[in-house]
């Protein structure tokens, strides 16, 4: 049964439970996405000279035969004028990947309603999450003008993902269903198919992720680094010239798509890097073969160049205020808001506030794997975690630190998510010191010393250090208030910050009992997203990094899960990975969210905090209000920066 993916998922999303009960496999043919008739393509001024000289084919030949037509009117945006340069400020060379995140061209993307829509793909057929048939756009080309075809998928699958040298641990876990790889087939030059024996519901979210799963690579470029295809002597010369060990290292370095360091690597993104590192400024130029256009026939992106200037990250607010960025959010914090707002009088920009997508801006994470046996017993006692949560006056924190603009909530999904239920946010997040004290007394912490500090069973005072990473000073401010709240419970808390690396090491080694860190990453999931934050899967989940490491390393390292509630979360996660219907996925999400918030595995404080976004007054189509998060949304990516445009300079 062939269904246009976008419509299928839109239906899932809209129709909700009612439809879901039918099961995903029986999806009915939905009407095709209404695509407005596009005008004949108009040549982009930026390339006009090159086209006139014959160095570049005309725009009609550069676009695929069936480009993705972006209906700006339907998105309530304006059709723009090509041209201009977007200046942005970044901290260091690693931030080059922000371009891949912001520009957000993927095989499948999320739209601003969080539906999956085909983007680089013309369409995608999904049969029961087991058989995925990918249809490419006819005439789609890489940024160097070479055709983008099934060969690029085959090259990745055969010669990269299944190559011992390039992928010693085999294909990416997102490409495995129940631990088994798919059968890969090339149907014709524009069609490829992945077939799994078991459902792989994580496949589409992985393709559409901010940090995407790449299942294709520019084969025509990378073959020169692969001894299967390249001339041996020539390749040996390249390896020597690049000062690397062997061809594998060279292939790995030249072929990085996520962090576009290699200006020669062809890309499908709207802008391509033209600057070879190291550099202080990276200049990205529009991709002449980009596959989207607007209804007036302009090839996207509108903006010709992106200039990424590297600077000390702590200077970025000051540089932004002096008008050195056109669209900037990274390295700006809420505490810079008044500073930014004040500069609007001098410089031609606006400071908007977008909502952040974390489950909690700051959450206190009890380390269930801490070394101290007495403390471990305490933090594993759900009554203790609940008491800590009930003892925090979130309202005051919101008023004092966030001017009342944040939302007092447990660490859970945000109301924008279709999975949200008020009881998750309300679970133990009200301020009730009496109940908290009663819980602590019930645990057996009823003895106090003359200062009113509770005593642990072995006679130690109930004193704990809450450790945090140093980069965010707001954590320190929050801890000031939490410390005074907890003093009323008879708990002496101290806060300590260290470098992110040391912070993490201390948690991994079990030295840290409580830490303060951001809450769940993806606060606005739909049921189709993997519930990655709610079960111990990675060592970077600081409430149970020992458990996480154990699962991540298939039981070789870390600490085996010995808490039934945590094991239940892992079982539920595994069930989601095997799930075949959206109804199952939604049910699993609900159970996990409920368990997670009832068990208070992380003590959320506030969420829905505001991210300042500085937007030049000359820049159009940037939303006034929006969600700002890495996942879902790729920060700006989901709002399609290729459709942002500048007022042409006044002549």
């Amino acid at each position, binding site marked *: 049964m062939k269904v246009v993916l976008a419509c299928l998922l839109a239906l899932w999303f809209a129709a909700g439970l009612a439809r879901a009960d039918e099961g995903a496999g029986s999806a009915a043919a939905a009407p095709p996405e209404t695509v407005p008739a596009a005008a004949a393509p108009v040549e982009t001024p930026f390339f006009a000279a090159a086209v006139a000289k014959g160095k570049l084919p005309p725009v009609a030949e550069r676009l695929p035969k069936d480009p993705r037509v972006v209906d700006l009117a339907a998105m309530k945006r304006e059709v723009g004028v090509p041209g201009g340069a977007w200046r942005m400020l970044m901290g260091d060379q*690693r931030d080059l990947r922000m371009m891949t995140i912001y520009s957000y061209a993927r095989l499948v993307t999320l739209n601003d309603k969080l539906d999956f829509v085909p983007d680089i793909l013309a369409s995608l057929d999904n049969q029961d999450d087991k058989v995925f048939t990918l249809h490419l756009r006819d005439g789609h080309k890489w940024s160097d003008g070479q055709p983008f075809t099934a060969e690029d998928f085959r090259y990745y699958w055969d010669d990269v993902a299944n190559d011992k040298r390039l992928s010693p641990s085999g294909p990416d876990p997102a490409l495995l269903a129940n631990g088994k790889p798919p059968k890969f087939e090339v149907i014709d030059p524009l069609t490829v198919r992945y077939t799994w024996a078991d459902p792989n519901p994580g496949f589409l979210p992985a393709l559409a992720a901010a*940090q995407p799963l790449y299942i294709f690579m520019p084969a025509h470029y990378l073959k020169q680094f692969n001894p299967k295809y390249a001339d041996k002597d020539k390749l040996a010369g390249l390896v020597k010239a690049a*000062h690397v060990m062997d061809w594998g290292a060279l292939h*790995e370095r030249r072929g990085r798509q996520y962090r576009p360091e290699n200006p020669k690597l062809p890309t499908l993104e709207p802008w391509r890097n033209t600057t070879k590192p190291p550099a202080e400024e990276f200049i990205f130029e529009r991709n002449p073969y980009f596959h989207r256009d607007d209804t007036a026939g302009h090839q996207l992106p509108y903006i010709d160049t992106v200039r990424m200037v590297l600077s000390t990250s702590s200077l970025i607010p000051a540089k932004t205020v002096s008008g050195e960025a056109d669209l900037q959010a990274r390295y700006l914090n809420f505490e810079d808001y008044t500073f930014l707002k004040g500069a609007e009088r001098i410089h031609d920009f606006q400071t908007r506030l977008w909502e952040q997508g974390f489950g909690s801006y700051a959450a206190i994470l009890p380390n269930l794997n801490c070394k101290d046996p007495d403390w471990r017993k305490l933090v594993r006692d759900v009554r203790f975690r609940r008491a800590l949560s009930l003892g925090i006056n979130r309202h005051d924190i919101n008023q004092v630190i966030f001017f009342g603009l944040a939302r007092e909530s447990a660490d859970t999904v945000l109301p924008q998510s279709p999975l949200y239920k008020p009881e998750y946010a309300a679970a133990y997040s009200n301020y009730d010191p009496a109940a908290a004290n009663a819980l602590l007394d019930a645990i057996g912490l009823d003895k106090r010393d003359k200062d009113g500090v509770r005593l642990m069973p072995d006679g130690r005072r109930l004193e704990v250090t809450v450790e945090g990473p140093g980069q965010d000073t707001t954590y320190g401010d929050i801890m000031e208030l939490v410390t005074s709240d907890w003093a009323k419970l008879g708990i002496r808390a101290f806060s300590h910050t260290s470098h*992110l690396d040391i912070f993490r090491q201390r948690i991994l080694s079990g030295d840290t009992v409580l830490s303060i860190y951001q809450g769940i*990453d993806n606060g606005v999931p739909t049921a189709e997203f993997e519930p990655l934050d709610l079960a111990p899967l990675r060592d970077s989940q600081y409430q149970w990094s020992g458990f996480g490491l154990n699962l991540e390393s298939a039981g070789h390292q870390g600490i085996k899960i010995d808490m039934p509630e945590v094991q239940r979360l892992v079982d539920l996660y595994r069930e989601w990975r095997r799930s075949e219907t959206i109804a199952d996925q939604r049910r699993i999400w609900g159970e996990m969210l409920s368990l997670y918030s009832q068990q208070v595995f992380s003590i959320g404080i506030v969420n829905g905090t505001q991210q300042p976004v500085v937007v030049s007054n000359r820049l159009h189509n940037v939303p006034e209000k929006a969600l700002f998060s890495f996942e879902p949304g790729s920060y700006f990516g989901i709002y399609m920066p290729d459709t942002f445009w500048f007022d042409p300079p006044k002549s």
Partner: protein
Amino acid sequence: MLTYLVRRVLIIIPTLFVTSALIFTVMSLSPSDYFTNLAAEMAAQGEKVDTGRIAFLKKEYGFDKPPVERYFLWVGGMLHGDFGYSFEYQLPVKDIVGDRVVLTMLLSFTTIVFTWLVAFPIGIYSATHQYSWGDYGLTTLGLLGLAIPHFLLALVFMYFANLWFGLSIGGLMDPRYFDKPMSWAKFVSVLSHLWIPVIIIGTAGTGSMIRAVRANLLEELQKQYVTTARAKGLHPFKVLMKYPFRMSLNFFISDIGSILPAIISGGELVAIVLSLQTTGPLLIRALQSQDMYLAGSFLMFLATLTVVGVLVSDVALAFLDPRIRMQGGATK
């Protein structure tokens, strides 16, 4: 003299060897490394780095080999000009440092010249007019420069330079000249930004140099030969310049040893605050992210410069001051 020279040169070799071993050991002692650090930073944003990938990268960069072997690979590479590979920049260390060294040297030379131009006249004036109002006033000014933290001064300067002169915040040039070949416009842009770090880094150096010039000169001024020269009716300025001032320069030459590395590393903290494209921020960043070979090679470079600087100043002193030379001879 020749044997002295040879001995001094030869002793450089074990010194540098021990230094390199120390640098490598200290950096290997850290329980984490660049890759776990990278994983932590990526995880902070919600990005995934699976353990298989980290293990792959570690192998890729030879981190699966024992530390001793890695040490000798590193040192061996340095002997023939290969300073290793930077993880963060994905480039040979040589290529990264190269561009920045020129700007750093420009900045440091200008700063040193600035320091001298300000400190010498003031120092001489203070010494010859000891305990006058001028002496007190100028000394206070110099000490103030020494006492105010650099980075604070940098922030204040940057703010007003932007407000009053419209200079871009931080950096050694306007962003539009980044990575462009040198041109007159770029040169002007560099000059218009250069004065801020020069004054800021220079003030502290000036303060201590004023005191040093003053103290050395005062000591000489009280000596009998000065009185004799004056008594013979020599012009006071000539007396000052020809004898006591020259004597007081000894400290200055022995200072070359510390100036050489300072030229390369000069004013890291200020450079970070001002976001200068010099080598200082590069080193700090490399140390923070545990970009081992970049940081290690950099520190080795600084160590070499220090050792060479000390040698140069010792030799220069021996040449310039007959007393030192003679003493050296007498002990043999």
